């Protein structure tokens, strides 16, 4: 069991409002990712769910029980911190055993749980070392090990991979995803890396300045963002926004085109411009195209794209893939569906 329901939850830090009234339903067993720009309140909300931060108003229900003022230890949740928060003077074994000892679990059972956690996370060789003698990735595994032995009803992760180097991050990402598949426990995962969000999540909640802009599966957010903020936040490189000179009959003031939805044409397309910087990544190429009256557009092309700096280029795009926003930034129904 691990369903969490937030009802009209708010948070103020001395008069400063950080979380606006917010509703969210987290289903049992799902992997939900909180993304959003820095300072938008993701960590704060996670800490409120964990019980480390008081809730100013509203309710947090865990498994249908009101847990708004339950102390952290009684909520049955486990958290993995960005700094890992391992106890530096205890061996890995004792770090993992700490929550079990506090819960007065019999010694034999503790031994057995440590052994199984060590097996899942490949910690066998390090059990008697101190955290200071481990690498970042190993520390991360110990922190996860300390969380899983408690068999919590949900795991909370606050940017757990942000201290790791790029390749290790990819590995750990896979390991956490696999862990979720095998444990089938609810996981709430905070990150501002959108690749992590897209690849790991069952559902993503996009935060902006204390509110949730949209909740949905990664593809829903990519294909049908409800507004300009979500459209710009999900997808890499960022979506191109093209302001229109005059408002269209349906109220559209701005078009949104993802770099991968442009087509480079030789005959006159919709937009024409000059190629600026060209970034060759091998499998694909990003062109920064200067278009008069619009600005720079980012265009994704094939890896063997022959264009280079200063070339003239003409662009078009599939009408059904172009998003249209009104002056409030709300997404309008796309032409293709009309």
């Amino acid at each position: 069991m691990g369903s969490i329901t937030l009802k009209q939850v708010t948070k103020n830090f001395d008069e400063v409002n950080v979380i606006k009234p917010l509703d969210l339903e987290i289903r049992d067993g799902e992997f939900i990712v909180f993304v959003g720009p820095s300072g938008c309140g993701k960590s704060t909300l996670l800490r409120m769910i964990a019980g480390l931060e008081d809730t100013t108003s509203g309710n947090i229900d865990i498994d249908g029980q009101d847990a708004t003022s339950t102390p952290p230890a009684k909520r049955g949740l486990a958290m993995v911190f960005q700094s890992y928060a391992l106890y530096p003077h205890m061996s890995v074994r004792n770090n993992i055993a700490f929550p079990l000892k506090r819960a007065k679990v019999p010694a034999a059972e503790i031994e057995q749980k440590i052994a199984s956690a060590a097996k899942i996370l490949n910690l066998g060789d390090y059990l008697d070392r101190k955290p200071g003698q481990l690498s970042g990735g190993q520390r991360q595994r110990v922190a996860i090990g300390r969380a899983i032995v408690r068999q919590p009803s949900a795991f909370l992760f606050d940017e757990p991979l942000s201290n790791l180097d790029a390749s290790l991050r990819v590995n750990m990402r896979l390991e956490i995803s696999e862990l979720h598949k095998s444990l089938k426990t609810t996981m709430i995962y905070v990150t501002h890396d959108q690749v992590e969000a897209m690849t790991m999540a069952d559902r993503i909640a996009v935060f902006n300045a204390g509110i949730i802009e949209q909740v949905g599966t990664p593809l829903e957010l990519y294909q049908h963002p409800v507004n300009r903020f979500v459209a710009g936040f999900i997808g890499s490189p960022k979506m191109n926004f093209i302001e229109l000179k005059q408002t269209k009959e349906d109220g559209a003031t701005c078009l949104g085109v993802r770099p991968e939805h442009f087509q480079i044409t030789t005959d006159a397309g919709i937009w024409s411009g000059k190629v600026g910087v060209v970034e060759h990544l091998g499998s694909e190429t990003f062109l920064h195209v200067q278009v008069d009256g619009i600005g720079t557009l980012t265009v994704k092309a094939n890896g063997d794209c022959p264009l280079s700096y200063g070339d003239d280029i003409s662009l078009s795009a599939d009408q059904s893939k172009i998003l249209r926003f009104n002056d409030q930034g709300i997404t309008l129904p796309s032409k293709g569906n009309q």
Partner: protein
Amino acid sequence: MATTHSRTLAQFMLFPSVVLLLAWMIVPLCMTLYFSFLDYNLLSPGTEEFIGFLNYEFFLTDPAFFESFFNTLLLVGGVLLITICGGIGLAILLDQAIWGRNYVRIMVLAPFFVMPTVSALVWKNMLMNPVNGLFAHFATFIGVDPVDFFAQIPLLSIIIIVSWQWLPFAALILLTAIQSLDREQLEAADLDGAGPFSKFFYIVLPHLSRAITAVILIETIFLLSIFAEILVTTSGGPGYESTNITYLIYTQSLLQFDVGGGSAGGIIAVIIANIVAIFLMRLIGKNLEG
């Protein structure tokens, strides 16, 4: 700047100050060592003669030596116990978000700036005086006989005075150590179901071990040579009840004018201090490593 050349130059430039410092230490030490082998009394000048280890024999077989040796240990141990325990308590209190915390911190530090003689006199005349002292007034107020601190419990009284002086030092060092504790560790412990006591014993205390070691080592060095507090309060009495080694050397060499005996005592004090230092480093020194 780590080439061989620059290092040689640096060593060469350091040479004069090292020599000066060494001379500063070595000359008095050698003179003390020399005097300790002489029959040298200021009352009969000009009759110095070499007497071998006789001074040491007299000093070590004097019953006063053993009493003052144990008094020294009790004094150091007692003050360490009080200042460490009290210091941890104070540090935890001062770490809480209380109103006017910064002023309270400065006030807590105040006793450390009061000269030992002055603070001992204040305690002697204003607080512990059996007739006029605050404690005596308080005792009569609640209807018990006032304690004559320096006659009945002289050593304990001195331990209390010295502890009062050193408590702020311990509290301040421990406070900075507590403040350097990663808050996320405490939050993780919260989630792991640790209560206040578990958090204190498993997280806070191990984190403080290094600072506690530093406090013990620093305080021990100073506490071995407590003198002014004894001189102005009990003068080592009654009998030898509040005499420590330092004070015993003083009575030997300056009250009995026996320079030879006093010097022997001084050398013994140096040896004791080194034994204590080695013992402490063995016991807790590993806490200071990385």
